[in-house]
Every structure is written in structure tokens, then in C-alpha cells.
């Protein structure tokens, strides 16, 4: 396996932008390339991750290439959904050995539509989507299962939201931050019980980008490359009723395959858009009690009036 590192990273997020995807992307892509030490024309592979349904424009990822400037023609790819998939594809591409750098970016304008309607379109079209269960409703079913199993309390969930918002005050890229007392959060109304507004993620428009470099080139361009020591992804059956919603075997297996399950780590950034999910993923990773979780503030946040 070839050593691959992240040598630069940039991001931008806001509740609602008046810019289009290209206008949001240009400053972030410019910054991430400048900071990488790799001249733009030498980047060997470009891959983006996005979901067209967020902004309502089919093939919006094609338009986004304006921010990269694809001339002379570049080697480029796009994956559905998000930057994590794009990063994985870039990492795989770099394993081939013929190129040594890749630009990865992700973007989305969720504020243009109603995310609770948009996310229904990703469900089983035969027995789920026709009932229109929005993503907060589905997460609520999982949160209730956690409460029933005694794996967390609503207070635990509120504490995660409060900690996240407090930690986000130190993160200039976070758009939801501030002090919040658990007692006050627990007075908020339910959106879909047992999830309150603070248990759910904010709606955001944003972009993120990273440059990956392989082998010795990474050491040449970056004093402290962030080496990817392991990477893996697993998925479970999609049907809600065939799984134990309180556990995540896919996370455990991916962590084992990536070589990190149960090992001592200093911090963990977990994508947990709903507060109860941090507990599920934390336990599935085998993280010890003292590990700092989501010092960036994570994915949860504040009231959104359209929720």
C-alpha cells in the first residue's frame, strides 16, 4: 500500500448562501491548492462528491467544474453523496502509482429546498418513500430504540448538543456555536419525539476541499502531512426493520479493517448528525472514555425555522 497524506484542507459553511456552487467553491479550491504546495496544473486527479437533489439541479457537479478550470482536459471523477466517498476514490486512485496528487472537493446547497422532503427521495421507493417518512422521523425511531434499551437518556443527548456547540465556538468554520445549558435545551419542543431541535443537524450550504499527496512528495511539500494510516467502508442492509438500530456493526467492522478499532486514539471526529448517533458510533468504534470527541463542534446545531 502506498502512503497517502492530506497536505491541505479548506472549508466554508453557512446557513444560507446567496452565492451559487461555483462562487462558493472558487475561494476554497484556490486556498487548498495554494496551501498544498502542488501547482494546479500538476494535480493528477480531481474528484468531487455531491448530491444534485440538495440544490435541485441535475448534473450540478458538472457546473461545479468551472471552479476548477478543466483546461487543458483533466482526469476527473464524481461520486454521489459526499466528500468522504470522493476522498476514498482519490486514495484508491493514488494507489495505482502513476500519479502522486489528487484534489478532492465536496459541496451542497441544502437551504434551497426542504431537506426533510429531499431526503425522502433516497429511500426505498416501494414501501418507504410513498409514506414520506422524513429523515428526522427515521432518526427518531432510532433514538427511541436507544432510550428503550437504556443506552442513553435525553439528557445525554442534550449534553452532546451543548458540548458540541461550546466546542464550535473555537472553530471559525462552524456556523452554529454558543453556550447552551442542558436544562434549557431540554425545555425545547420535540420535532419528532424523542428528538428536539438541538438533537438534529442544522441546514447548511457549504463546501470543503482537500489535497492528497502520496509518498515522498507529501514530505517534500508539507512539514507535517496528515498520513492516512487506514481507510475502510462497510454498509448494512438498508431496510429499517432487519437491523438492530442501536448498534452499528458496519462501523465496527470498518474500524477493525482500518486498524483503529479499540486502539488508543487522542481524538475522534465522528459524523453524527443526530446526537444519539454519536453514542452509537462511539461505542461501535470501541473508543475509551477519555477520548475527545468532535472538538470541531461536529454536525449538530441550532434551531432552524424550517425544521
Amino acid at each position, binding site marked *: 500500500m502506498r502512503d497517502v497524506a492530506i497536505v491541505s484542507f479548506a472549508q466554508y459553511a453557512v446557513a444560507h448562501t446567496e452565492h451559487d456552487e461555483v462562487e462558493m467553491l472558487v475561494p476554497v479550491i484556490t486556498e487548498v491548492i495554494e496551501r498544498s504546495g502542488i501547482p494546479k496544473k500538476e494535480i493528477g486527479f480531481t474528484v468531487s462528491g455531491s448530491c444534485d437533489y440538495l440544490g435541485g439541479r441535475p448534473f450540478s457537479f458538472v457546473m461545479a467544474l468551472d471552479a476548477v478550470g478543466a483546461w487543458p482536459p483533466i482526469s476527473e471523477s464524481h461520486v454521489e453523496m459526499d466528500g468522504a466517498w470522493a476522498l476514498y476514490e482519490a486514495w484508491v486512485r493514488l494507489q495505482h502509482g502513476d500519479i502522486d496528487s489528487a484534489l478532492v472537493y465536496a459541496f451542497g446547497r441544502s437551504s434551497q429546498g426542504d431537506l426533510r422532503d429531499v431526503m425522502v427521495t433516497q429511500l426505498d421507493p416501494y414501501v418507504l418513500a410513498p409514506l414520506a417518512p422524513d429523515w428526522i422521523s427515521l432518526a427518531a425511531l432510532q433514538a427511541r430504540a436507544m432510550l428503550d434499551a437504556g443506552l442513553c437518556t435525553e439528557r445525554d443527548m442534550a449534553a452532546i448538543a451543548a458540548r458540541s456547540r461550546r466546542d464550535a465556538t473555537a472553530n471559525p468554520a462552524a456556523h452554529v456555536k454558543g453556550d447552551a445549558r442542558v436544562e434549557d435545551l431540554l425545555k425545547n419542543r*420535540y420535532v419528532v419525539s424523542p428528538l428536539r431541535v438541538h438533537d438534529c443537524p442544522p441546514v447548511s450550504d457549504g463546501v470543503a476541499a482537500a489535497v492528497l499527496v502520496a509518498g515522498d512528495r507529501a514530505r517534500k511539500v508539507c512539514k507535517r502531512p496528515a498520513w492516512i494510516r487506514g481507510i475502510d467502508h462497510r454498509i448494512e442492509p438498508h431496510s429499517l426493520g432487519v437491523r438492530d438500530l442501536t448498534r452499528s456493526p458496519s462501523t465496527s467492522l470498518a474500524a477493525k479493517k482500518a486498524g483503529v478499532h479499540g486502539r488508543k486514539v487522542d481524538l475522534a471526529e465522528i459524523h453524527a448528525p443526530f446526537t444519539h448517533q454519536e453514542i452509537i458510533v462511539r461505542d461501535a468504534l470501541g473508543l475509551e472514555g477519555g477520548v475527545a470527541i468532535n472538538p470541531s463542534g461536529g454536525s449538530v446545531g441550532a434551531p432552524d425555522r424550517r425544521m
Partner: protein
Amino acid sequence: MESTAVRGGALKAPYVLEYTYRRSVGPVLGRFLTSLREGRIEGVRTPSGKVLVPPAEYDPESGEAVGDFVEVGQSGVVTTWGWVEEPRPNQPLARPFAWALIKLDGADTAMLHAVDAPSAAHMKSGMRVKVRWRAERVGEIQDIACFEPELAPNLATDSPKSETRSSGGAR
């Protein structure tokens, strides 16, 4: 379509994205939907003996093709739920209701649907619910209009836990 200028010069306009899909369902889902049209619920049995409702074409655990169809009961147990105080368009009910995963009698997996309960206080995991059929059925999941509690509500014996009140108590 009308657009409005937003202060600062950025424009805004409404936009509707619409697709009129008609999806073929195949023999397995087709049979499930056909039995719904007839007011019955069928699942499939996997080679390992599990009954899947709704049916899947292949066993999610082993990937093997599924076997016989099995009729299951029209009532079952709520395995988890969530209360919707403000229903959204296209959801099964226009008044507050509960989503639930329901394991029907004879099934080994749970299916998602709505429960028409008077309030969140009437919902709890483990309760029994029964199907309420739509009057005119055509062969789709909405032929089940929703589920309803099997027993008449009795708040004296089924005392609600404090966290089910929407004013926000917590354990």
C-alpha cells in the same frame, strides 16, 4: 414564474422538480402489493427460516434468493416509535400521529408505518397495533391506511413515562 429580488442584489425564484415515475415491482414485491390489494399481508421465508415483511428478493444476511410466501397476521408489536406533532404533506395522516416499526405476528422483521393514536402518551414500545385498511385498495403500501392501537386506550393502567410529554421532561 415570479422571482423576487433580494436585498443585496441576489435573486430568488420558486422552482419545482417533478418526475412522474411508474416503477415496475417484479414478482416478489408485486406479490406483496397484490395481497395488500386483497386485504392480506404476505412476507417471504428465507432459506434460514426467517420471515421478512415487507419481503425482499434476497436474504439480507446471506444474499440467497428467498423462498415461499407466507401470510402473516394483521396485528403485531411496536418495536420503536416517534411522535409527529406536525404532520407533513404526503404523510399517512393529517393529524398528529406516530411513526412505528411494527413486527406483525408471524414476521421476523418489522415494517414501517403510521399509528393513529390519540397522543404520544398512548404510544410505547411493546404495545400491540392492528391494521386499518384503506377502503379502496389498488396494490401499494398506502393500501394500509395506518395502524391503530389494538386495545382501547386506558391511561389509568398504561401510565405514560415522563419523557413522552412534548413539554420536555427527561429521564
